[in-house]
């Protein structure tokens, strides 16, 4: 079989409409940025799913390690005083 060098992987982000953030929707293979954009348009926006596309080489993404999940995120767990419901406001004060 005819094997070629691996075509790079890209992550695709789509903005559904103005006012919303670009959101990760999947990935695809493409040789360069132009082809990645074209492929993203064909693969991920066949039904008007967006009005703007970002493509980013997957290799450029720096991700936190799942092994560090507890060290990174557990400390926020007991900081209930960061939430509005931690504070008691009498009902007759009204909505705050």
């Amino acid at each position, binding site marked *: 079989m005819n094997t070629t060098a691996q075509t790079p992987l890209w992550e695709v982000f789509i903005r559904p409409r103005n006012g919303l953030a670009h959101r990760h929707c999947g990935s695809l293979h493409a040789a360069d940025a132009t082809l990645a954009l074209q492929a993203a348009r064909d693969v991920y926006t*066949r*039904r008007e799913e967006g009005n703007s596309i970002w493509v980013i080489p997957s290799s450029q993404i720096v991700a936190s390690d799942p092994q560090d999940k507890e060290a990174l995120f557990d400390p926020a767990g007991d900081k209930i005083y960061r939430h509005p419901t931690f504070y008691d406001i009498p009902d007759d004060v009204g909505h705050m």
Partner: protein
Amino acid sequence: MYSQGLNDKNLETAETPEFLAAFQARIDADEKIEPNDPMPEAYRKTLIRQIGQHAHSEIVGMLPEANWITRAPTLRRKTALLAKVQDEGGHGLYLYSAAETLGVSREQMTEELLSGKAKYSSIFNYPTVSWADMGAIGWLVDGAAIMNQVPLCRCSYGPYARAMIRVCKEESFHQRQGYELMISLCMGAPAQKDMAQDALNRWWWPSLMMFGPPDGDSLHSDQSAAWKIKRFTNDELRQKFIDATVKQAEHLGLTVPDPDLVWNEAKNNGNGGYDFGEIDWNDFWKVVKGHGPMNKDRIAARTRAWEEGAWVREAALAYAEKQKHHTAQQAQG
């Protein structure tokens, strides 16, 4: 169902019982597993195989319908068929991407499809001999696919579940356009109605086989159920499909080609369901093992596409390389 071939070897793991128990606890708590999370090797391998087979099925599944695009009788039908086949290509790509998050490359998966090592759904190894087959495939084959894919949206592996949500959103039009096509044939001339009946006769049994072997013969089912990869058994899904589809056939005025098909009040915990005739599993295994009417043609078509596309992939990569070099030189000044 697109992973019907999933019942060969037993997978072994070297993981400690504590590790496996902790993993199972996450699954039991309905947590999603994401790409870099620790997972048992057998879980990873099962998913690579299942998602890979599913992706291959979408891609090979483009071929039987592509066969009729140029001969669609109206522009309306042609645009629908084109859009459907394009969607199936998209489904294949979403699924390949999901499989790749587990550490297998696209090239490797393609190689396994072309060498025959990886399987795809047996349904795509039957020929599409008449225009009515476009109706029967949308109605029955996509209908069966939907039955199977909806529960996969809740699969424990995040990227697979997310891909399936996208796929399911797109599938509904596939089934509806097929059924609509059947309606027009059934309301047409007697010859058109005969065509529709003939298509139902040929696609009915292969569609039931899409759900895979009976539960007793399906070795992987228990483990896949425990891992929440598979939420219903093959037989449960098959029954659901039959119960939903018989009414639709009656509405068309067509006869389901099963003399043993009979309503049984007691089925489905008293809610009623159809008893149905014996499925020819020998025929199923023959097709899965590569001896269906179209196995050779399907792989030949995919091999040709891969080989004839090689120069495009190479040229695109060479151009990208050159551009990178160019930009680097300009930056130097």
